[in-house]
């Protein structure tokens, strides 16, 4: 099989999907999905700079790396090794994934309420594949680009969180995704599945972290399915090595009257691309996406959104704020599509950016495609600098110019940081943002 695969992938992504290790073949339906994915990799190939979704997101640096697929779990870490990754005061069921593999001995699940299942995908593919059938690979479908296809072809582990109808998690699930440098650059391709049954409620705090400053790539994919009346609060904090490459595809399928409340914080890595894709399966569902990104010198942060309103009476909002300094670059590309039948759609999109240097670059493209007159839709973007009169006001009170700038940046970011809700998490992120700004030569 490996020879045919290599021929089909045209060479470019061979190492990303190379066979080996202990990846479970999985049930027939998954094997079929993998075969299909492998076949598509060849036709998709690497996106070119001309492809619309990649115009401002250069892939050259990523493609120049010789990333090797991770095959083995990292077993050397002891619980004490991840202490520095923990957030003081954060009370959560903790799941730790290292280089894409679930590590039970580092995790601290505690006691889970009835109707809640948490585990690793690798184990569940062997023990109970039926629980995944119809969800895994079905929610994301073909995905929005070749990296989703690669993940489907090469997935071997990740978080599975299943809540039965009516189950409620009181404490959040904290998913720590830790990347540890290896001798040669690795690509981890974790696959996470979250399913909330009708009326179920949960909060997931997903954190991407690095041990050390190593070079690696994470190509993660999340499939999230919300039943009728389900509620998911999802906080995603990306704070990785300055040499890391990060790709996330988040595919969200929402049932009637369900609510998804997502906050994305993007603070670290050399290059990060996130695609947030939402589909509504029932009416009166609501999807709120907010985000804060900081792109420092030579960093690239890219958020793409694809929100599709096919049904009436659903609401979506996107509220993203960015701070870009040095030669940092940010890309915001949000598409809201409202189908002819989607009356009473309520959609609002906002992207505001603060540029701290002349060499910083922001490419922001909010798009509304509306084929129905009976809707309430808005969008707006701003790209600005720190207001001189705000800076002067603070300085006139004895505050140094660098501290004044940091205070104004934190003030700008505060709305999104506050949206995190959880106080321990909020404080942690505020500190991290403060530290990043302190390092910024402003």
């Amino acid at each position, binding site marked *: 099989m490996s020879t045919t695969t290599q021929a089909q992938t045209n060479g470019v992504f061979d190492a990303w999907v190379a066979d080996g290790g202990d990846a479970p073949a999985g049930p027939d339906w998954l094997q079929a999905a993998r075969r299909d994915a492998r076949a598509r990799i060849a036709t998709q190939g690497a996106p070119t700079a001309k492809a619309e979704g990649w115009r401002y997101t250069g892939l050259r640096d990523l493609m120049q790396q010789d990333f090797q697929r991770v095959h083995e779990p990292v077993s050397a870490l002891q619980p004490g090794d991840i202490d520095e990754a923990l957030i003081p005061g954060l009370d959560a069921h903790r799941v730790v994934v290292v280089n894409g593999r679930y590590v039970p001995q580092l995790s601290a699940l505690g006691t889970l309420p009835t109707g809640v299942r948490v585990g690793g995908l690798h184990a569940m593919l062997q023990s109970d594949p039926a629980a995944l059938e119809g969800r895994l690979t079905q929610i994301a479908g073909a995905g929005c680009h070749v990296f989703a296809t690669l993940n489907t072809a090469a997935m071997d582990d990740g978080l599975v969180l299943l809540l039965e109808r009516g189950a409620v998690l009181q404490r959040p699930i904290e998913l720590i995704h830790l990347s540890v440098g290896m001798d040669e650059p690795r690509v981890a391709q974790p696959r996470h599945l979250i399913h909330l049954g009708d009326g179920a409620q949960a909060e997931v705090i997903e954190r991407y972290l690095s041990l050390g400053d190593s070079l690696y790539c994470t190509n993660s994919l999340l499939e999230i399915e919300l039943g009728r009346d389900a509620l998911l609060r999802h906080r995603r904090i990306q704070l990785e090595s300055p040499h890391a490459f990060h790709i996330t595809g988040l595919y969200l399928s929402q049932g009637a009257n369900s609510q998804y409340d997502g906050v994305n914080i993007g603070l670290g890595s050399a290059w990060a691309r996130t695609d947030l894709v939402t589909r509504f399966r029932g009416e009166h569902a609501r999807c709120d996406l907010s985000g804060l990104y900081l792109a420092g010198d030579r960093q690239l942060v890219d958020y793409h959104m694809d929100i599709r309103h096919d049904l009436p009476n659903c609401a979506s909002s996107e509220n993203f704020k960015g701070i870009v300094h040095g030669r940092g670059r940010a890309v915001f590309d949000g598409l809201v599509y409202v189908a002819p039948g989607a009356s009473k759609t309520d959609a609002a999109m906002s992207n505001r950016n603060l540029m701290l240097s002349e060499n910083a670059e922001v490419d922001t493209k909010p798009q509304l495609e509306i084929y129905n007159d009976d809707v309430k839709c808005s969008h707006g973007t701003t790209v600005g600098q720190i*207001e*001189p*009169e*705000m800076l*002067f*006001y*603070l*300085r*006139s*009170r*004895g*505050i*140094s*110019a660098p*501290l*004044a700038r940091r*205070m*104004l940046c*934190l*003030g*700008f*970011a*505060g*709305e999104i940081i506050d949206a995190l809700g959880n106080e321990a998490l909020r404080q942690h992120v505020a500190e991290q943002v403060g530290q990043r700004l302190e390092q910024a030569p402003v």
Partner: protein
Amino acid sequence: MDQQLPEEPGASRQRNDWGRNMLSVKGLMAEVGGKEILRGLDLEVAPGEIHAIMGPNGSGKSTFAHVLSGREGYTVTGGSVTFDGRDLLELEPEERACVGLFLAFQYPVELPGVNNTYFLKAALNAMRKYRGEPELDAVSFMRLMKDKLKILHLDDSLLKRPVNFGFSGGEKKRNEIFQMALLEPKLAILDETDSGLDIDALRIVADGVNALRSPERSMIVVTHYQRLLDYIQPDHVHVLAKGRIIRSGGKDLALELEDKGYGWIVEEEAAA
């Protein structure tokens, strides 16, 4: 441009004892966007004194306040400003604040997302650090804030909100006076603090200012109307026109201005 001030009757009221004075402004000239606004302004302020600077619109009152506080966009083209023995014009805005200068803004700036308490603590501790004093911890700071609120008869609702954000005109001005109470400047410049205030708000602000009067603290009250001076009694009143002080006197001068307007002084000055 004639930099020499003619000997005005009011000039004799100004002190000549430069060394003793807190603020000494001599022949100050400044431009905004290439336009000459201040054309040889002289002013001496001794500790504890309250000086009112009045004048018609466009006379340079606010420019003077901004030049003293170090705002960008103003080019000083001549003259000197000595504050407490230092060359004030050499200092950055934050340094001016740290050596004891305070500007109460005509239009206090809204800072969305910046919590007022956090802002006040940062300001106070920046000044303490500058002076080599230890920073205040959270508990001592809260205690100090409560004391100052009591002196000014203010409630603490403003402290939990972002700085000036969504504040009414009166709340913004009160927040300025509260900052002044907390930062305890040697010299406070109140730039048109009365503008946009109704009579009740004006009284609250004036009461605050009066509560902060002390033999060591001087104030320069910049105003277009005499009205504020009913509540804040100045030791000296100066009339600013076309970038110079053309008349100085006691608080009676303010009443005369209220009665007769600015025209007659400006005309007399032009004729002189």
